[in-house]
């Protein structure tokens, strides 16, 4: 039974990882070799595809755009999301119940219902097409992160807060020097979760950015896949090279911090 479990798990893991291996190998081959032995090349690997995709899509510019888009969302979530999570967890104020109900509701409203009105408002109404602000606004404060922050502040002992307040510390000071240091692991989990949202997001920045020099990498690579690739010498090689560049930061961060990506942290966020 035990052996069967490990065979299933490791076989499954290899099947799950294979597309990533194939992505990397394909990006390093000068001509696509789709035979079975071609998946395990022994020689002839090259970086030409990376140069090729870079000549068609401005990789550095797109990465900077992705970085600004993601950075803006992270900043909004960490600053305003932590404040809201703290207030929801530890402070009694008018409207708290209503706000918490909204936090729960927002998580079940699918983004596609808001797509058309948000487009009309942000692009047509406020004229924010091809701007970072227009990209960031709909994602500015990640509600799941607010929820996780709240859960973690809620788990801290009451006495801690009573003592700090008794010493005359204001709420911002209690938050900054008492509560935040204690929830640092949660902060990291929420930041990681928030990061993958905008970094990987395609639909919204695709709608907002028409100028190539404003597009995040997910959008410029997608445009390359759907429009340009047919005319390239080794279209798949270039696509896969771009895919590796797009995947690397998120995968790298995830592997580096994978022990923070555990069920107990998220579980408390999901269970409510």
């Amino acid at each position, binding site marked *: 039974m035990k052996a069967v479990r490990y065979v*299933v798990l490791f076989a499954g893991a290899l099947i799950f990882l294979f597309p990533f291996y194939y992505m990397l190998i394909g990006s390093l081959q000068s001509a696509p070799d789709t035979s079975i032995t071609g998946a395990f090349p022994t020689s002839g690997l090259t970086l030409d595809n990376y140069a090729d995709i870079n000549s068609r899509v401005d990789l550095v510019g797109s990465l900077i755009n992705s970085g600004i888009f993601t950075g803006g969302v992270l900043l909004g979530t960490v600053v305003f999301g932590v404040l809201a999570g703290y207030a929801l967890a530890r402070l009694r*104020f008018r409207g708290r119940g209503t706000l918490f109900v909204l936090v729960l509701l927002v998580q079940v409203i699918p983004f596609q219902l808001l797509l058309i009105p948000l487009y*009309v408002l942000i692009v047509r109404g406020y004229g924010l097409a091809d701007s970072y602000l227009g990209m960031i606004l709909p994602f500015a404060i990640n509600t799941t992160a607010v929820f996780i922050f709240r859960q973690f502040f809620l788990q801290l002992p009451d006495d801690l807060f009573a003592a700090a307040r008794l010493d005359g510390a204001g709420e911002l000071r209690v938050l900054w020097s008492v509560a935040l240091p204690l929830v640092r692991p949660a902060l990291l989990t929420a930041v990681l979760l928030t990061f993958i949202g905008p970094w990987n997001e395609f639909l919204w920045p695709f709608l907002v950015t028409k100028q190539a020099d404003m597009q995040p990498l997910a959008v410029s690579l997608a445009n390359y896949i759907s429009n340009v690739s047919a005319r390239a010498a080794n279209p798949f090689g270039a696509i896969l090279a771009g*895919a590796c560049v797009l995947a690397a930061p998120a995968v790298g961060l995830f592997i580096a911090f994978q022990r923070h990506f555990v069920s107990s942290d*998220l579980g408390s966020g999901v269970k409510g």
Partner: protein
Amino acid sequence: MRVLGRHPVGMILSAPYAVYLAVIFAYPLGFAVWMSFHDYFFAAPGAIVDHPFVGLDNYRAVLTDPGVHQAFQNILIFLVINVPLTTGLALVLAVALNRAVHGRAFLRVAFYVPYVTASVAVVGVWLFLFNSGGLVNSVLGPLAPDPSWLINEHLAMPTIAVFVTWKQLGFFILLYLAALQNVPKELYESAAVDGASAWHRFWSVTVPAVRPATALVVILALITGANLFTEPYLLTGGGGPNGASASPVLVMYQRGLQQGEPDFAAALGVLLVLGVLIVAYINRRLIERD
């Protein structure tokens, strides 16, 4: 003072988030519903135009549109494949992972990594794997389907359903792992005392114990399916062949923004969300029933 609660400062701390919710969710939500009952179109910037009330006209247009019918049928095919596959595989793998002692970090990375990677990036490699001369067809040899997977009208949607299962499974394994931590150990012990086989323990202890998580997994998989856009847009070149893999959100994008009928798209969005809510409600009743 009391009117504002014991800590009125909480209102100030949460104000930015409350404003954000009002501007980004509440107002657009109301706007979407309003738009779906009016004749709304894109006018030249600065022009003041009338948007007359048209009652249910937009809804009638959506419900009689053959493209919309096909998109909903496609999404049904998607859900019939994706939801059972996701729920079953996620639970089995979570149970196996939960008991695994060796190689946990490696296994975790392997199963979660598709979830943290951009769809656009992994779509690239699936295009490469599943095109006519791709690796999958070279492995299958004479068994390879003709026309190939993504350009075959019977296989395009099932291929997308399998892609999304692979892409999202890690997240659902995580949800099940969290639920498994809360299954009381005594249940397994008493089942073992009764001489129940591992298979029997799985069905009679684990499956009922994680039922709330299953309800959540099914609803979230349903919402993911209803939101499908990137995959049909890129994997099958805009919902091809002949619309066999078009999704409702793809139709919303094509009709609302490409063809300039945002009122039609808004009505489609409202219907889509109502559909998701109804199915989610039925699913909840079915799964939580004893």
